[in-house]
């Protein structure tokens, strides 16, 4: 059995207990004008190196930069695109977490102007010496997590965002990225203050636009719920990998047999939002069961969502357990 360990995206930014919280101090100092942008970037560079080292140490094969430079997964993308205005108020809850963000406002036509994530990906890739997965909040979720004050037809907005993210994806591919993940949590969970019922037709159309013409490996990632409400052609969407949450989306256990053999599965098995540690046996059994259910030898295994909801020590402990479980399932002595 060929099992790969990966992560969904974010990682806790606070240091291990007793260490100075350099990033928090640096951001505060930057806001007071006491250090330069380059100084802050240096601290972020160090943190990216540290987080990648921690993931590699836990046995993670496909790593991310832990979103070390981002306050959250939405606002840096919105800030980098034309058409969004960054709010100084409008602080709202991120799904059902006790985590909040300032909702970006759409105030003009959304257009891609220049690369947003490429430099950061290049840096992470340089220090990792292994593939680094870049994540982008997908077009449907990015719109549902924003406030539209410009477009009369929300569908037009979603498709403009999809075209803009496709341009970003192409820039990443041109820079050498080999694995790109689009996060679409709004397909399976309800963002605070989003008024409308889910529009899968629109989400699917936008997802296809976002990956149009790409040659690198693309993943469609959902978390905080299962895909039971999605139409049956969900797994026919043009992505090479489907990332599913088996913790908050128990229904995925029943649906995953429908995954076509030419699509890979990235299975979120470790609860990314509770500190209680999964047992090695239960994880290994779940991996084997998924392998049987989906009739495949090759699987990716991840936490159920980004790990930033956990304290740093607990996140590391979980990730080490994930690495152990993957080796155990693959038949390697632990």
């Amino acid at each position, binding site marked *: 059995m060929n099992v790969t360990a990966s992560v969904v995206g974010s990682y806790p930014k*606070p240091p291990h207990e007793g260490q100075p*919280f350099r990033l928090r101090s640096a951001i*505060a100092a930057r806001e007071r004008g006491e250090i330069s942008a380059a100084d802050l970037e240096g601290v972020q560079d160090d943190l990216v190196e540290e987080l990648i080292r921690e993931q590699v140490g836990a046995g993670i094969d496909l790593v991310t930069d832990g979103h070390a430079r981002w306050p*959250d997964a939405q606002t840096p993308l919105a800030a980098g695109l034309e058409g969004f205005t960054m709010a100084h*108020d409008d*602080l709202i809850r991120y799904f059902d977490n006790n985590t909040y963000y300032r909702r970006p406002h759409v105030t003009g036509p959304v257009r891609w102007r220049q690369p947003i994530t490429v430099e950061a990906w290049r840096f992470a890739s340089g220090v990792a010496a292994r593939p680094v997965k870049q994540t982008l909040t997908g077009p449907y979720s990015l719109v549902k997590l924003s406030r539209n004050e410009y477009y009369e037809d929300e569908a037009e907005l979603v498709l403009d965002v999809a075209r803009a993210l496709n341009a970003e994806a192409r820039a990443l591919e041109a820079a050498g990225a080999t694995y790109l993940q689009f996060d679409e949590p709004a397909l399976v969970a309800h963002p*605070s203050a989003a008024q409308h019922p889910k529009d899968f037709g629109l989400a699917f159309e936008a997802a296809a636009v976002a990956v149009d013409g790409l040659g690198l490996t693309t993943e469609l990632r959902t978390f905080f719920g299962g895909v039971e409400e999605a139409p049956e052609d969900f797994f026919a969407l043009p992505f090479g990998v489907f990332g599913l949450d088996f913790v908050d989306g128990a229904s995925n256990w029943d649906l995953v047999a429908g995954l076509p053999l030419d699509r890979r599965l990235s299975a979120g098995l470790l609860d990314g939002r509770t500190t209680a540690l999964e047992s090695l046996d239960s994880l290994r059994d779940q991996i084997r069961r998924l392998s049987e259910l989906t009739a495949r030898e090759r699987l990716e295994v991840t936490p159920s969502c980004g790990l930033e909801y956990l*304290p*740093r020590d*607990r996140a590391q402990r979980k990730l080490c357990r994930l690495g152990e479980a993957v080796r155990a399932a693959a038949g390697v002595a632990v």
Partner: protein
Amino acid sequence: MTQVGSLPKPGYILEARAKAHRGELPAAELEELERRATREWIEFQDELGVDILVDGEMYRGDMVAYFAEHLTGFEEGGLVRAYGNRYYRKPIATGPVARPAPITVDWWRYAQSLTQRPVKGMLTGPYTICDWSFNEHYPSREEFVLAVAEAIAEEARALASAGCRYIQIDEPAVSTRMDELDLAIRGLAVVTEGLEATTLTHICYGDFSRAYPKLLELPVDVIDLELANSNYDLLDDFRRHPFTKVLGLGVVDSHSARIESVEEVAAGIRRALELIPASSIQVDPDCGLKTRTVEEAKAKLRVIRQAIDVVRSEL
């Protein structure tokens, strides 16, 4: 006019808390400074003419961690991000939760001794304490919430026995999950049932529209909401279904440094008055003001006072 709860800690408290955390300041000296800061905030509110005061929570850190620290069964957790560059310590329940001794009663008594006007007792609700903690002990969320509810109920009764007439049980997490609204309501009912005081709750940053009008089932007399942060969108919900409690009307954004104008706050109060009678409105900031500076908080509170006076003169 009233207050949601927390007020900013002056610089000397922040320094003293950091020193005490490092073991460089005895607890008694920190407490003396916290009493001084409490006195200063009570005086400010008295002079401003706030009708129902708060002690400002000079002695509390996070609203959940503070209670977790004083209840048995919780361990201090590591830092997790709240928003932007702000982090909090998320407690971990590792054993049965119980209240070994009164938590807030002495502070309430002290604050009340400084003024003739009523001072609110401030508690965090059971659902929010549980939702903002990790649970490694209880087999279900329900058991966790109801166990914490018993502990908070004991504290609420102790405040009432001490003479506290207004008891606020904050449940900012209550509108997070529609499938747990009933559990949150049951938890709060454990706290407020038979309580001889006016009961209030504060809710924020949830999916209010989806939870409304079910939220009117919350067993309290007053529901306090953030109106300014959402540009008074919630009033549309009240048009669809009348708001039947006393409304705590949040009129300034607690998470923005911008000082609102008297006119925009007055306009907000007038919009609420179109739907709810003046006798059923308590005006306050959107949320606790602890993330603002002392000067920003005072400026925002002065604007609220002036706006209330402007609107009152029109009634």
